[in-house]
């Protein structure tokens, strides 16, 4: 079962297309990382999947449901980049409001976690710091017991210790409840630890969509003489090549080193940066008929 499936998805704002002809399939049971330049369309994609934006073109489904439908809203939790909350409410009232607005609600989870974070105060939500508001929003999202969690840069306002703790907590939810997660982030080192599926968006289109394992298995970081770098492009698919003096470092999509080149396994960071530098390169899941 696919948690996310889009076909020809497009979103236009006035004259520009934030998303164009997006075809994406994310299988269940993954933690999918969404990466791309600012303005590549990550936030738009997440908002469409959350059912908050109606796409201009194409279709999308989450867990097989239409985004924004009753079933989708029951099974999917989303925390937007703007960390939406009722800021003029007191924290207790905000939690109570969230409880009233949802059928499925894990009160214990919400209260215990918020208490341990010292957030169950009588102050207003708007008076909390950015990081505290993010923690509150995440807790409320997970207290709904969703099957899919959509997060847009959830850790941006958290300090390093809080980031570690939140990621750890999310991964435990993945382990215990079989939660699927799609989150966008700029911090690639965190993605390495946590993500099992990678989606790279570039200029509103899907550039890379594959499991992390298959990506790491199918790419190599090659080192060799700069003079041969040009020839190499004819032998194997080259993603990026950096020449410095006599040596060239190449990121190639191959699993065996061509003769004359030293190979080592590529890290996720090198992979992501390589594809971001080279928007024309693509790694897309094969269509049904092919292969």
């Amino acid at each position: 079962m696919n948690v996310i499936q889009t076909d020809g998805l497009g979103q236009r704002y006035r004259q520009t297309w934030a998303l164009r002809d997006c075809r994406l399939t994310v299988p269940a049971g993954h933690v999918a990382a969404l990466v791309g330049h600012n303005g590549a369309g990550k936030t738009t994609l997440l908002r469409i999947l959350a059912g908050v934006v109606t796409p201009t073109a194409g279709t999308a489904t989450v867990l097989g449901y239409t985004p924004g439908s009753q079933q989708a809203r029951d099974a999917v939790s989303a925390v937007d980049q703007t960390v939406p909350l009722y800021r003029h409410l007191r924290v207790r009232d905000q939690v109570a409001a969230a409880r009233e607005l949802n059928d499925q609600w894990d009160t214990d989870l919400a209260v215990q976690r918020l208490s341990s974070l010292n957030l169950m105060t009588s102050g207003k939500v708007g008076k909390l710091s950015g990081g505290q508001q993010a923690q509150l929003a995440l807790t409320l999202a997970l207290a709904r017991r969703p099957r899919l969690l959509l997060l847009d840069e959830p850790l941006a306002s958290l300090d390093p210790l809080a980031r570690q703790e939140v990621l750890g907590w999310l991964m435990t939810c993945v382990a215990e409840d079989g939660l699927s997660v799609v989150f966008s982030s700029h911090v690639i080192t965190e993605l390495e630890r946590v993500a099992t599926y990678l989606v790279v968006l570039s200029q509103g289109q899907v550039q890379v969509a594959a499991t992390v394992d298959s990506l790491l298995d199918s790419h190599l970081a090659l080192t060799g003489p700069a003079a041969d770098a040009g020839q190499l492009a004819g032998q194997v698919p080259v993603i990026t090549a950096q020449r410095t003096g006599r040596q060239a470092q190449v990121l190639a999509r191959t699993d065996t080193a061509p003769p004359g080149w030293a190979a080592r396994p590529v890290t996720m960071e090198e992979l992501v940066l390589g594809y971001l530098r080279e928007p024309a390169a693509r790694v897309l899941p094969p269509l049904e008929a092919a292969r």
Partner: protein
Amino acid sequence: MVTDKPDKIEDGVSPIAFYLDRGLGVPTYLQFVHQVDYALRLGFLRAGDQLPRIKDVTRSLAVNPDTVMKAYRELELRGIAAGRPGVGTFITQAPAVVGLKQMAALQKKLTTWLAEAAENGVDELGMKALFTAALRDFSGGGAASRLPGRAGARREGGAA
């Protein structure tokens, strides 16, 4: 500040805890496998001990549970551990440890090799580079070393 862990093994708590070394460039699940191997060799882990629970590892290290499961599967393939559904993963047997005498003989051979390299003008870094390259070639090198099945087969086929 050093936080003390109790010597006594409590119910559901493993004697060891995993850690991450990002600088290594070794995939995370293999790091865990090596850490278990190391702990077994040094006696921190004995047959019958429980390995850290998946949810404890994910919470403390913020890694995907799949990574831990992969590591435990690899250990099962090597015959070192076995999972008990609903309870956890436990060490079944300590790996065949190479005898002290053989270790001493191997180290002597290594010292001879190092002396020869030094005579030929190879410095310490050069020695390390030679050793690393030879080791990588021996293990299969590149992407192939990642596949647990293949790595396990090679391990079994090669000398231990």
